[in-house]
């Protein structure tokens, strides 16, 4: 019975665990940390500069958008689209550029100062620095 209980607990824990999402920037960026509020400002396009440094968010196909928007930014996809619509149709900016794969997005972040994106914590590698987790 005890083993069965432990097995059930393990399964529930596994099912309930979601990949941890972190926000990354190039390792040589002067930005070392971003707050949740700053991420909201940056990803909704209301801010492009943090502590004097230009920051541009990017995304990629199959990015875990809903989890990032909901659990990190505290917004729904619909709210983000409404924010981007306001930017786009007033000539103030574009939604985050979408790259074709995580690999391409990672390469862009490493090579272009100021680009940030969100990835699974396990995918952080050389050349990247975590600025929010």
């Amino acid at each position, binding site marked *: 019975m005890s083993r069965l209980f432990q097995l059930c607990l393990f399964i529930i824990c596994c099912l309930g665990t979601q990949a941890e999402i972190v926000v990354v920037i190039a390792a040589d960026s002067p930005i070392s940390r971003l*707050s949740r509020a700053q991420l909201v*400002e940056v990803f909704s396009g209301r801010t492009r*500069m943090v502590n004097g*440094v230009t920051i541009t968010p990017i995304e990629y196909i199959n990015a875990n958008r809903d989890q990032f928007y909901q659990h990190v930014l505290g917004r*729904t996809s619909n*709210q983000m689209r409404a924010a981007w*619509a306001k930017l786009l149709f*007033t*000539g103030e900016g*574009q939604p985050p550029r979408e790259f074709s794969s995580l690999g391409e997005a990672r390469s862009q972040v490493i090579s272009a100062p100021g680009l940030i994106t969100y990835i699974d914590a396990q995918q952080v590698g050389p050349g990247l620095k975590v600025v929010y987790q």
Partner: protein
Amino acid sequence: MRSDLCLPILASLLLPVALAEPQSKLQLSGFGSIAATRTDDDAIAFKRSFQSRANSKTWAFDADSRLGLQLDMAPSDNWHGVLQVVGMQREKGTFDPTVEWANLAWEVNPSWRLRLGRMVTPVTSSSESRDVGYAQLSARPPLETIGIYPMVGHDGADIRYRHSLGEGEMRVQMFAGQTRYKLPFLAYTVDKVYGAAINYAVNDWTLRYAHTRLDDARATGGSYVTTIGSLLPSLNAIAPYCVNVECSDLIPRINRLTTGWGGRFNVISLSYDDGNWNLMSEYATRKVNTFISDARSLVTQLGYRINNFTPYVGFNKVDSINRQQPVQFVVSDPAQQANADILAAIVSRSLLFPQAAIRNVIGLRWDAHRNLALKIQVDQVKHKYPQASYTGFYVRTTAPDGSLVPYDGKVRVYSISADFIF
């Protein structure tokens, strides 16, 4: 540059660049609203101030329905062109497209941007996105603050500067240009539109202040000009004999409608959005040197998101600071007094429209599908001067004999809309 020359020149500058450059990025997108409105009173109809047709107690799609198409061009990282055409019911009562945005922007560096062409004047926090229903929480932008400014856009230039300040970002935008604008009863040419907007965004809060000025605005056509043109010889004949301030002040102001008038507009806004709670409050003032009333308005809106549903409430108020009551002209020559009385009555009835009103709002936004929001809204409006002949957003209806249908000063406006982007 004349505004009718500006667009073809700008288009000719943009398109060859976009088509010739292999790395050019062209993107077509759009937005729209299919929206029905009605009032609960045959005596009063609802419309936008620039529209001809108003609608009272039957459902109609005239007031808020629109379709916008936008072409974005980015020939390089630092250059961006935008062309936006929006179709809706306008001053002739027909669904007409108008170029709302047509400009070329140069990002000099991350801090500075220079923009040249046609743009919407950033008078209030929602002026620039006024047509994009999907970007707004409620069924339409706050008419009390947007309506305090009589124009929409300008052809000219603006400079924007961004700067990190504390945990947030400050944006300063300075603009200047000229414009033309048509209302159902009036056409304007404005030689000088200029001002500045300062915006500070930090931790879910945004504080904004904008100051806009109009100079050398001249009415060039429309029934209003005809009415005033027929009155002015008589008004100017009694002007030298004016004794009271209403007479000596108002007659030159009426003259300025066609000879050139100016206005000052101040708007301060505060908004908060943490993903669940959404608050927007805005206070606006208008001061003009023609006979149109000075005004002040306050709008406040609060919403709370529950999954894909966001119920919201609003309290809005607009007041005419002057021109609330019929005017009286007192003249020094007794022989002219009877004539002055008649002219004062005509001016009061034909030219002075006090806009004082309180509007309470309750509504619901439902993000029903990706890129689609459905909204239902009820506006409870109470006009302070129900006897006035309104011309802005609310229009008194006339009986078959031409008289105004009696109005008790209270009206509800019901709205149902589907706002989308693509």
